């Protein structure tokens, strides 16, 4: 008989994994993720180099000489009536600086042909701001002003090291945060998508009456469990493939992109011998890259992600299965599916707060509570929390799953034969007693 569970699992798994849509999303999603992270770089490279020329009508006669041309903005000082300048199409626009600009920095107008660009506007207002400020400073007549200003500049770079970790290693808090949120979001997606897949698949079987045939050979509980396990296996397959593809891409591409001097500094950082002042690369970036390059750390993250995916999926899929069995159509199901959806959404909403303070007591409790623990725990794990906390949370999660699946099976075997009416509590109890 347990052979039958295996047959159901096998069918669910093969039918789904061999679908074109599954193969496509599995391969394309990691590619897309890499592409999205590369696009800003590409965009910066290929940004339009059209230079826009602005006529400057400077009534104060202080600002114009100090204006410097930017990459895509050029200034030409002119002395013509405003109206004729406005009519002149040769210029992209006219910048009018009022005579009282030093007293009133807002006394400046920009007229443009066509829509204005945010970049240009920012560039112009920044320039004018700094010119006005430096002119105002100059008015105090302080000697060696430039040198004083240079001397007082301070640039703080905080290198952080974990003392409680097994080996003292450099960490990047911001990267922990990003990794944690990314994993929480991934779980959120998987739980909702695959959980609902279980539900719709049960409704479908119920509607096209395949169910009647299957339950004449398989116990309903076995069918439900087989379906949940089969679909769960699909989810695990997908996430494992994603990680494999992503890490191959990153593993191949990263070394090619990183110049040797950067990798030397990365090595120095990890050894704790990096002199921050001499670093030519932003230290945040160094820390981030060194963290991503820490294979042991990444593997442990992935391991926990998979465990929480499995536990969370099994728990939520049982609830979705019970709902699917007790309704006739998707419309009715969408009302009931609020029950499992609300805690999933609540968890993802809390995730950011938890990421900002992963050791708060709220974080601790939410990562133990089984309905939020998968999403919350994966946010906390990258920051490095005691291993026993993780395993207690996993134990609670799986214990709740067993309880839930037992309950769901009771509802399921009544629900699947109920067309158009809800089972009474009395009937539920009677079914529960039947062997």
């Amino acid at each position, binding site marked *: *008989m347990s*052979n*039958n569970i295996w*047959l*159901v699992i096998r*069918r669910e798994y093969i*039918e789904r994994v061999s679908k074109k849509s599954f193969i496509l999303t599995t391969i394309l999603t990691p590619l897309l993720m890499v592409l999205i992270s590369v696009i800003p770089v590409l965009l910066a490279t290929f940004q339009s180099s059209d230079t826009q020329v602005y006529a400057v009508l400077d009534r104060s006669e202080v600002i114009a000489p100090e204006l410097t041309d930017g990459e895509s903005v050029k200034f030409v000082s002119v002395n013509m009536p405003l109206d004729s300048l406005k009519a002149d199409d040769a210029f992209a626009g006219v910048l009018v600086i009022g005579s009282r600009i030093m007293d009133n920095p807002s006394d400046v107008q920009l007229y443009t042909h066509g829509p204005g660009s945010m970049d240009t506007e920012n560039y112009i207002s920044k320039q004018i701001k700094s010119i006005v400020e430096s002119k105002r400073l100059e008015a105090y007549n302080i000697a060696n002003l430039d040198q004083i200003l240079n001397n007082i500049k301070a640039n703080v770079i905080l290198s952080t090291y974990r003392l409680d970790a097994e080996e003292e290693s450099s960490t990047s808090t911001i990267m922990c945060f990003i990794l944690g949120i990314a994993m929480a979001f991934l779980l959120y997606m998987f739980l909702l998508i695959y959980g609902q897949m279980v539900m719709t698949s049960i409704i479908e*079987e119920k509607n*096209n*009456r*395949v*169910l*009647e*045939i*299957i*339950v*004449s*050979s*398989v*116990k309903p509980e076995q069918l439900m469990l087989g379906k949940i396990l089969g679909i769960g296996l699909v989810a695990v397959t997908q996430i494992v493939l994603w990680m494999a593809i992503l890490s191959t891409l990153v593993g191949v591409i990263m070394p090619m992109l990183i110049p040797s001097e950067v990798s030397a500094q990365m090595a120095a950082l990890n050894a704790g011998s990096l002199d921050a002042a001499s670093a030519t690369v932003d230290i945040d970036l160094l820390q981030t890259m060194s963290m991503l390059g820490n294979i042991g750390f990444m593997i442990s993250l992935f391991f926990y992600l998979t465990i929480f995916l499995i536990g969370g999926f099994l728990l939520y899929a049982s609830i979705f299965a019970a709902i699917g069995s007790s309704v006739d159509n998707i419309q009715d199901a969408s009302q009931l599916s609020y029950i499992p959806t609300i805690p999933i959404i609540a968890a993802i909403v809390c995730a950011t707060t938890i990421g900002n303070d992963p050791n708060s007591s709220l974080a601790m409790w939410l990562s133990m509570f089984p309905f939020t623990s998968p999403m919350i725990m994966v946010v906390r794990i990258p920051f490095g929390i005691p291993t026993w906390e993780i395993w207690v949370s996993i134990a609670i999660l799986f214990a709740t799953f067993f309880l839930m699946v037992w309950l769901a099976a009771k509802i399921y075997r009544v629900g699947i*034969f109920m067309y158009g*009416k809800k*089972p*009474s509590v*009395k*009937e539920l109890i*009677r*079914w529960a007693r*039947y062997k």
Partner: protein
Amino acid sequence: MSLLTVSNVSKHYAGHTALDDVSLEVNEGRIYGLLGPNGAGKTTLIRIINHITAPDSGQVIFDGHPLTQNDVVNIGYLPEERGLYKKMKVGDQALFFARLKGLSKAEATTRLKEWFERLEISDWWNKKVEELSKGMAQKVQFIVTVLHRPKLLIFDEPFSGFDPINANILKREILRLRDEGATVIFSTHNMSSVETLCDDITLINNSKNILTGNVEEIRNRLGQNRFKITFEGDTNNLLAALGDNLLEHSVDIISDREKAITLKIAPEISRRELLRTAAEAVDITSFGSALPSMDEIFISTVQQFNQNKI
């Protein structure tokens, strides 16, 4: 010998009773008709026999012991509402169901190929179910039901959706399975197929077993004092002559002059007496006893039951 004994089975759902103290006995190697109007409780009874639902009270004995989950591999069930996975290929699907019934992959494949050839559907093996017509899908489903050679076969409306040619093929296969030793329970509204196929029947109405027994025996019993007379002449003369002794009758017009009357007379009137009375009133062209069709038995039994209840 009885393969299946259902004794005093009742099943209640919230608000209504699906089965009320139903008993029946299905003998080995027979085709057993389970009849009844819609909503009478047939499907519930079939589900109980299939170990899908549990009875509230009563007992089901299968092959000499109380029915358990392990017996389902000896039962083949074709539900009224047919269902297959639409997106799955026919062959894969048939294999899946066969293996659920405990056949090994190799065994299932050999038997399936055999059946597919016999029903001339071999080239459907790699088609998806959604590409098949309703009748085609039914054939696949029929094969899936019988493939594991169960001792007990349960068909719920097996002929619905089939054209006459395929219905005949199906009938032939059912009889062949019976001859090979299978016992068949057959739930249907199609009374002509009951007459040609069934050995015994049970008629369920309003959750109760209201008529049970051998088809021939029932027809003969209910056919006592029923006669069919064809005649020429005035129907009213005949009816007047028979008077109060006529319990029920129906008249068919055969040709311009000839009519036929099917009638039931009071038991104390002998055949000779009836013939004499009728001959005085009209010109008789033929006379014989008339066995009721299963259709008539079904309708009159159900109506009588419903009237008594009121």
